[in-house]
């Protein structure tokens, strides 16, 4: 017993002299102090890690049997479903994992809006997160082409042709992305390379620096209080507990619950009624047969809705007044002459652009801005408090409206854009952007509650 422990210690000592093993363990787990008041919303970071690992593992096995060739791809997926031992399970875990990855990441991001997690000192952590989100979208988009189903094909065709809309460089750019004049074998091959090697590498590196940035500043918590401000004599935060073992055992519980949900879907309803696997992807890509309705998978539809809602009517009657009102608001509230000048210049340029450049281009621009807006949130939010627990009615109302608009836009993106639906999407679009545009004002004027000294718990 003693000699065994002694041998273990000697081995560890030998390693520690050559590699910071115990040091890393302590710095990031056993002596890394996290706030003790984490709630439900704090499971999703570790769940995102779990799903990332799962996607990589299942992806490796899929790659062993998948064939990136327009003539073979569809059949190779069916081969995996039928002839490869446990192939159906691997594939369903991967397809279910892709959708649940977005569920987890959307909830993870929503948490930041609840508790002000993007605020000082976590701006960089947040920015890395938004880059991860964009990389994840690229990963999902390219993965969706691989089965070479009819929706894969037409979805990619439509989305890539968006680049055609960009003036001057557009058509060349779209052709460069596809490697052909239409989505074809060259496209499938490069998407395979990017989906399987390039983007996962980028994702892993980004997640690594995401965690490094997190551990530099430490976690926020549902009260939005910096626990590092109150330390005991040994320099340990009074409201902190070591990540290991406390949060490792807690996250195991959360992960198990998540895996139960995962199992129910992957084993019993892997198509989730067309939300996770679309019916039109059960026939091979066919250039002559357009699906009744071309739509991306659910996690892209809020952005797809924004794209489609940007019609020429929308530019004339929605965006034009929006730009004028925003410019007036900024000029009215900011006294600096330079700011006023720049604002007027940008507004003038936009208005001229609205007149001369077709609406399709603005749709692409707005879709980009809908993503880009997330980068600015740490600076748009001017509230003296972080957590929604101590914010006033204005922020709560704004966040509620934004959440509803996001979900409604997502739903409408799966439907044909007719009469009422297209009007609703336009309203949703305006609410979506107003949430960001007006944030400096409603967070300034909101009446906040006093924040306690120490975290509230239980």
């Amino acid at each position: 017993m003693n000699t065994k422990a002694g041998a273990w210690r000697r081995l560890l000592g030998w390693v520690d002299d050559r590699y910071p093993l115990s040091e890393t363990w302590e710095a990031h787990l056993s002596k890394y102090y996290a706030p003790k008041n984490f709630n439900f919303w704090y499971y999703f970071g570790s769940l995102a890690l779990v799903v990332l690992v799962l996607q990589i593992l299942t992806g490796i096995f899929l790659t062993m049997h998948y064939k990136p060739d327009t003539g073979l791809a569809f059949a190779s997926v069916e081969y995996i479903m039928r002839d490869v031992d446990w192939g159906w399970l691997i594939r369903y875990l991967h397809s279910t994992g892709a959708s649940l990855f977005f569920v987890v990441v959307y909830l993870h991001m929503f948490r930041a809006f609840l508790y002000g997690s993007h605020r000082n000192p976590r701006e960089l952590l947040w920015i890395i997160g938004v880059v991860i989100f964009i990389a994840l979208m690229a990963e999902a988009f390219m993965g969706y082409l691989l089965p070479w189903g009819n929706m894969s094909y037409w979805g990619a065709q439509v989305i890539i042709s968006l680049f055609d809309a960009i003036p001057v460089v557009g058509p060349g750019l779209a052709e460069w992305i596809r490697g052909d004049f239409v989505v074809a074998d060259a496209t499938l091959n490069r998407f395979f390379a990017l989906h399987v090697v390039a983007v996962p590498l980028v994702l892993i590196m980004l997640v690594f620096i995401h965690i490094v940035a997190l551990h530099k500043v430490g976690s926020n918590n549902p009260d939005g209080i910096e626990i590092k401000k109150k330390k005991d004599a040994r320099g340990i935060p009074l409201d902190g507990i070591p990540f290991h073992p406390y949060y490792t055992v807690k996250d195991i519980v959360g992960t198990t619950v998540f895996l139960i949900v995962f199992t129910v879907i992957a084993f019993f309803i892997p198509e989730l009624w067309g939300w996770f696997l679309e019916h039109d992807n059960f026939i091979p890509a066919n250039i002559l047969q357009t699906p009744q309705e071309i739509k991306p998978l659910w996690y892209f539809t809020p952005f797809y809705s924004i794209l489609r809602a940007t019609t020429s009517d929308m530019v004339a009657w929605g965006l034009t007044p929006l730009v004028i009102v925003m410019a007036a608001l900024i000029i009215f509230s900011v006294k600096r002459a330079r700011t006023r000048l720049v604002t007027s210049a940008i507004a003038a340029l936009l208005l001229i652009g609205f007149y001369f450049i077709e609406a399709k281009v603005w749709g692409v621009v707005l879709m980009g801005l809908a993503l880009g807006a997330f980068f600015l949130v740490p600076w748009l939010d001017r509230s003296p408090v972080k957590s929604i627990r101590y914010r006033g009615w204005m922020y709560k109302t704004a966040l509620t409206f934004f959440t509803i608009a996001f979900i409604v836009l997502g739903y409408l993106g799966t439907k044909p854009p007719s009469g009422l639906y297209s009007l609703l999407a336009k309203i949703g679009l305006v609410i979506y952007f107003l949430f960001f545009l007006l944030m400096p004002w409603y967070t300034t004027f909101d009446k906040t509650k006093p924040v306690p000294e120490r975290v509230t718990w239980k």
Partner: protein
Amino acid sequence: MRTLLLLVLMGLPLGGHAAEGHNECGQLAKCDPVKIDLRDQPSLQRGARTFVNYCLPCHGASYMRYNRMGQDLGIPEDLLKEDMIFTGDKVGDLMKTAMRKEDAKEWLKTAPPDLTLVTRWRSPEWVYTYLRNFYRDDKSASGWNNLVFPNVAMPHVLYEWQGELRPAQPTAQAQDGKPVEKTAPTSERLEVAKPGAKTAAEFDRDMRDLTNFLVYLGEPAKLDRYRIGVYVLIFLAVFLVFAYLLKKEYWKDVH
């Protein structure tokens, strides 16, 4: 506030999306329901027999192997060879059709699509309804038409079983006294013009068996995945209890 947000999140419109556009049944208001039961092996066997005899001559099921079907449906290999493989294929081969694409195009104008995944693309209900709604139409090239798939290029291959149907004629005189054109489906209903070898109930049962088989064909793993899923859930549930107890034990001393 929190409850409001949770409500919003839970309100995610899940159900409404269901198989949209796939439950549309051509000229019919909606598809007929069909009872799918993959544990009903005799039904699957009957469906398989109909399939290889009447459908495989034109349609392939070319992602599926004969011997896998034999194993799953409890059909011994010699029986498979004798009774179900007509193309000279081996038992380990994919269930390809003997008809060449070019010939099919020439005879039928349209190449018959592969049917392996048809119930996953359309829906079981669509296929079941489609198979039962062929009617006589002298204007079409094959002499047949279909309420679910107007102007379909497929002839009614099972007409000897079902007999010949025609659009139900309105019982009352056509409005304005104008004669109603005979072959146009004036209603959603078909009526028997010439009875076939089977009664309507027998034919419905046969088509249910065939549809049941096509659902199996779309995903053979369905036979396993429900069963295995239950074991995985039981394991996770037990694991959850211990994980929770462990967490509770550790967190006792967090105040």
